[in-house]
Each structure stands twice: as structure tokens, then as C-alpha cells.
């Protein structure tokens, strides 16, 4: 039974990591109606900038500050050079252009840092671990990851629901033209939202760097998961993204740990070894298909919530 408890904790923690990435994506999509496939490479850049910052300063925290600033600057440059010209275009144009940004930045990272994976050490203060079951330690850094994810969720909730900027963001999401007619500089608002989204992506990259390989294309896999999360949660809904990320994290983790065992009850062992992992890796997509079928606008649609 402790194993199940451990796996639940693991699932929540994967969910939080997914939320960190999905939050920026859904924010930009919800407010600006802009599909930013480049969100994954912005996450990758956050990780790389942190590694570079660590190389310069030797401190995780200074590296984090530098990487956040760098993510913001790169995000704003991309907004001015590329994305700004796409807000009024169709989703297909946005997908094509931002996909181009993915290819460009993945290669760019390879040219600068090479194709071998790099690493960012866990900061000293968070490097310990806590025994949670016999022989298994739970790294303190993973707890920090969960805390930071919850903090981001709280920050977003307060920003969007309780501040003047948040009010404008919500208004802009509902009817951008009307907000603009009332004298709000909607372009600047969008730039603010986009910059914030870029920083969120960068932050996710920084927090993921100590546990995952920092390599070109590291954002591509996660981008797909992030889209699954925001589709399940309801596109544009921060609350939906949070709940859906936790659900996806739990379903994926519990599925991975139990699918083969369940398959063994139904099939002979050799077949179970084939069926179990195959089903486990499909589970979240089956979940997404089911959600799309029964609740096409997601579990927590932005407009209603």
C-alpha cells in the first residue's frame, strides 16, 4: 500500500511539472487566442540559460535570476520579431510560423551548446532527501518543485482574479476589441502577457534542468503533454490547466506502475509485457479523447469559469 501512496505522490509531482509548462501556454492561448508551439523551445531555453548562468556564476539562484531575465528578453524579442505579426492571422499561420521558430531555436541551441546533453546541479540547500519508504529516498528538490508549482498557481490566481492587470487580461480575453475601444493599449497588454508566459516557460525549464537531461529538443515531448493538459482542462483556463495537469500526472504515473500488473491478470505473462506498457503509454490520450467526446470544451472551460 505504501507503494501506491508513493506513486500518487510521484503522479502529483509530474502533474505539477506539467502545470508549470502548461500554465504559460494556456495563458497566452486564452488571452491572446494565439497558438504558440514555440512554448516548448522557450522552456528549453530556460534550462540552457540556467546552465549557462550556472557556468558563469556558480550559483543556482543567480543562474535562476539570469535565466528568468534571459527568458523574458528572448520572449519579448520573439514577440516583436515574429509573433506580433501573427496575432491577426489564422491559427494555421501561427502554427506554421511558431513551428519554424522551434526548428530554428533547436538548431541554434545545438550550434551554441553542442548536441550532447548538459546538466544543472541541484542547489546545495535542496540537495538532501527524505526516506519515504524502505530503501527509497524522496529528493528535497522534488518537494521544492511541488512547492514552486503551487506558488505559481497561487500567483496566477491572485494576478488574474484580483489585480487590475488581471481584470484587463480577463476582459481582453473576452472581447479584445471592446477593451481596446475603451482606451486600453491592447498591444502592450498582449506583450505583457506574452513576456510573462515566456518567463513561466523559462521557469519550468530551470526547475526541470536538475532532474532531466538538458538537450536540444527537450521541449518537444513536453509540448505535446502540455497541449494534452490544456485540452483536457479547457483551453485558456488556468484553473483547468492546474486540475488537468494533476489528473494527467496521476493517470500517467499510476498507469505506468499498474498497467503491466493488471494486464498479467488478464493475459499470459509474455503478452502482458506487450499489452501493459502499450496501454500505459496510451492512457492520457484515451483520457483526452474521452474528455473531448463528452466535454468538447474541456473539464473547466475558460468562458464559463
Amino acid at each position, binding site marked *: 500500500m505504501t507503494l501506491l501512496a508513493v506513486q500518487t505522490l*510521484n503522479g502529483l509531482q509530474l502533474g505539477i511539472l506539467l502545470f508549470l509548462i502548461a500554465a504559460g501556454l494556456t495563458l497566452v492561448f486564452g488571452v491572446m487566442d494565439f497558438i504558440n508551439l514555440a512554448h516548448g523551445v522557450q522552456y528549453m531555453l530556460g534550462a540552457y540559460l540556467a546552465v549557462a548562468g550556472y557556468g558563469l556564476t556558480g550559483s543556482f539562484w543567480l543562474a535562476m535570476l539570469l535565466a528568468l531575465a534571459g527568458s523574458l528578453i528572448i520572449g519579448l524579442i520573439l514577440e516583436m520579431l515574429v509573433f506580433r505579426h501573427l496575432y491577426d492571422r489564422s491559427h494555421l499561420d501561427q502554427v506554421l510560423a511558431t513551428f519554424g521558430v522551434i*526548428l530554428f531555436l533547436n538548431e541554434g541551441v545545438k550550434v551554441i551548446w553542442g*548536441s550532447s*546533453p*548538459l546538466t544543472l546541479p541541484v542547489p546545495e540547500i535542496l540537495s538532501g532527501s527524505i526516506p519515504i519508504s524502505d530503501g527509497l529516498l524522496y529528493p528535497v528538490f522534488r518537494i521544492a518543485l511541488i512547492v514552486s508549482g503551487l506558488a505559481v498557481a497561487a500567483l496566477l490566481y491572485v494576478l488574474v482574479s484580483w489585480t487590475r492587470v488581471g481584470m484587463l487580461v480577463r476582459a481582453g480575453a473576452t472581447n479584445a476589441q471592446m477593451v481596446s475601444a475603451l482606451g486600453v493599449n491592447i498591444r502592450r497588454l498582449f506583450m505583457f502577457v506574452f513576456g510573462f508566459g515566456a518567463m513561466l516557460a523559462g521557469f519550468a525549464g530551470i526547475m526541470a534542468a536538475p532532474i532531466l*537531461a538538458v538537450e536540444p529538443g*527537450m521541449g518537444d515531448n513536453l509540448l505535446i503533454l502540455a497541449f494534452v493538459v490544456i485540452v483536457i482542462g479547457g483551453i485558456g483556463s488556468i484553473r483547468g490547466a492546474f486540475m488537468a495537469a494533476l489528473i494527467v500526472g496521476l493517470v500517467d504515473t499510476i498507469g505506468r506502475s499498474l498497467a503491466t500488473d493488471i494486464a498479467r491478470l488478464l493475459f499470459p505473462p509474455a503478452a502482458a509485457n506487450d499489452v501493459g*506498457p502499450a496501454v500505459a503509454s496510451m492512457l492520457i490520450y484515451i483520457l483526452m479523447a474521452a474528455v473531448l467526446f463528452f466535454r468538447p470544451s474541456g473539464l473547466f472551460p475558460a468562458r464559463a469559469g
Partner: protein
Amino acid sequence: MKKLLTAAVTAAALGLSGMSAQAESLKIGFLATLSGPPAALGEHMRDGFLLGVKEAGGKLGGLDTEVVIVDDELKPDVARTKVQGLLERDNVDILAGVVFSNVMMAIYKPVIESETILISGNAGPSPIAGKACSPYFFSTSWQNDQNHEVMGEYAKEQGYGRVILMAPNYQAGKDSIAGFKRHYDGEVVDEIYTKLGQLDFSAEIARIADAKPDAIFTFMPGGMGVNLVKQYAQAGLKDTIPFLSAFTVDETTLPATQDQAVGLKSGSQWASTLDNAANKHFVEAFEKEYGYAPSLYASQGYDAARLIDGALKKAGGKDKEALMAALAEAPFDSVRGDFKFNTNHFPIQDFYVVEGAKRDDGKYVVNVVEKVFDDQGDAYAADCPM
């Protein structure tokens, strides 16, 4: 962008060979995966090969050598088209390289049918070692199963009675586990198949900690391996449950895993500390040239270039019949020490257990722990009609 890079690399290779218009020159097509996440393997192998060419003064076997480097993008169809170009437009004398087995299987037939010499610097799928073997094919690496077999044998020798095996859920992953089990005779507590490209291994690690095996064996190439090694160490299992692997802990991943991979075991036919003159020279020259520590992939690329060099000298030119006969005798000093070709043109060589270690200069490399197999051929050679 990729095209540009390929063009630039090709141009560099052309520059290397000087492009002089001599009567007899040699043209080698070098196919490697140079884009996407697994590019590091291809780059290591390419750099090793080019070092071999450079050390021969740009003249393998005394012939002006032009190396045309092509990126297969890890797409079998792309590889096939590009190889067609190398064979028909560039008229290469030899095709070398190839990191991944699925790419090898896609290009094997057209290359062999055009009667072009094919030298694998890495991929060694079982059909080519067995029934589909060919006199035109030579390998300077291993048959795919072998580095996994090494770990199975080692686990048996160490008396690990209960093991958990873990690999990504695709063909190479299943082959890996089959290879491990060929010599291992203890109890396999669990076989865990993960998603290809998996990021978070905490669910699997919790299962391993719960089952408390004597050891785990895993095959997690590239970034997946980095993720797993980091998380395995962070969960505190590194010091309690021995970590046996193949193609997971090597110089392409050690820069990312560093201390977290120190002491983790891996099966290999090469390590930078193997004590022979050719290897000492290779490791030193490679690091001087490229500024990073070579991996087994680099050693295989280097051996491929040196094999071609030695065989051309022995054959006294690039006459195909003579060259093939010379190649089969492996007239060169391999950086791995003992090296001769089996009947199926895969090497008969020694295999070692190696482990991640930090060198005095701060670089991370693999060191030899012990020799497991001496002069070992592969399990498929008997099926090869040659």
C-alpha cells in the same frame, strides 16, 4: 538549416582532402545521425573517423581521400534517398558510418546490391550478422546483442540472483533484454518497458525500490538515460541497488550526469583507459583535436578509418577484390586491442564491464572494471552462409 550544415561539413571535409586532381583518389560516403536529440552519437563517430583520416594526412592508404558526410536525420527513408545519391551521383568507393540499426536495415540492401563496400561504425542488427550477411559488409563495432550479453554474464558472475530489467518499449529495447538473458541464469523479478523518450522515471524507480532486487539492468540510450541516471541517484538507489547498463553510461551522457553516474556499470568493448599504444595515442589526439573526451562511438569511427587505411595499404590500391580480401584480415592496430574478423565480418574481440569515473583533470570517462569475454564472437555468425 540542416542542408546548410551538411553542406558546410561536406565543404570542410572537401577542404581537408585538398581536392587535388590526382589519378587515383578515394571517395568515402559517411552516413551518420547528426540532427535531433541523438546527434551526439553521430558526432562522436564522425569526429573519430575524421581524426583517422587526418592522421593519415588526408590520404587513407596513400590515396587522396574525400569524405562526403551525410546526415540521415534518423529517418530510414531519408537515409535511403541520400545513400542512393552517394552511390549513383558521387560514386563513392566505400560507405561508412551508420549509427542506428533501423537506418542500417534501410540502406543495407541498396548498398550491398551495388557491390559497394559498407563499413558499419556502430549499428549491428542481427540479420546482417546472420542469414543476410554479405562479403561487402564489415563492422568495426559489435553485433547489437553483445554489450547486453556482457552485463548478463557479469550479473551471473557477481551472483546477483534477482534482477529487474528495464528498457524502452521498442525493438532495440526488447533485443537488449533478450541479449541480457542469453547468459544470465538468475531470477528476473520484473521486466519494465517504458515509453520511448520518457522523462520522469519516479514511478519505475519506486517499483524498483519496492521489489529490492540484487541489481537492475537497463538500456536507456541518450537523454532518457540521463534522466534515469539523475533520478536513480537522487532517489538514493545508486548506492544500494547496483546499476548495470548498456549504451547508457558513456562519454556522450557523462557530461550531463557527472557524479551521479560515477560507479554505474556498463558493458563495452572499449574504454579510454584500455592499455595499448594505439588507444593511448587515440585518446590523447582526440582530446587535443576536439576538446572533449571520446566515447566508444568515437573509437569505432576511428577504427573504421584506420581499418580502411590499413587494408588499402595491404591491397596496394582500391581494386575491389583485393581490398575486400585485405579488409577481412583487419590489418590495423585497433584501439580496443585484440581485433579480428569473424566469418560474418563482425569483430571477434574482448568485452569489458566499465564504470563511470571522474578523471584527475575533472573530465568524466568510463574506466575498465574487468574483462568479461575474451575473443568473443556473436551468436549469429553460425547462421551466416559465408
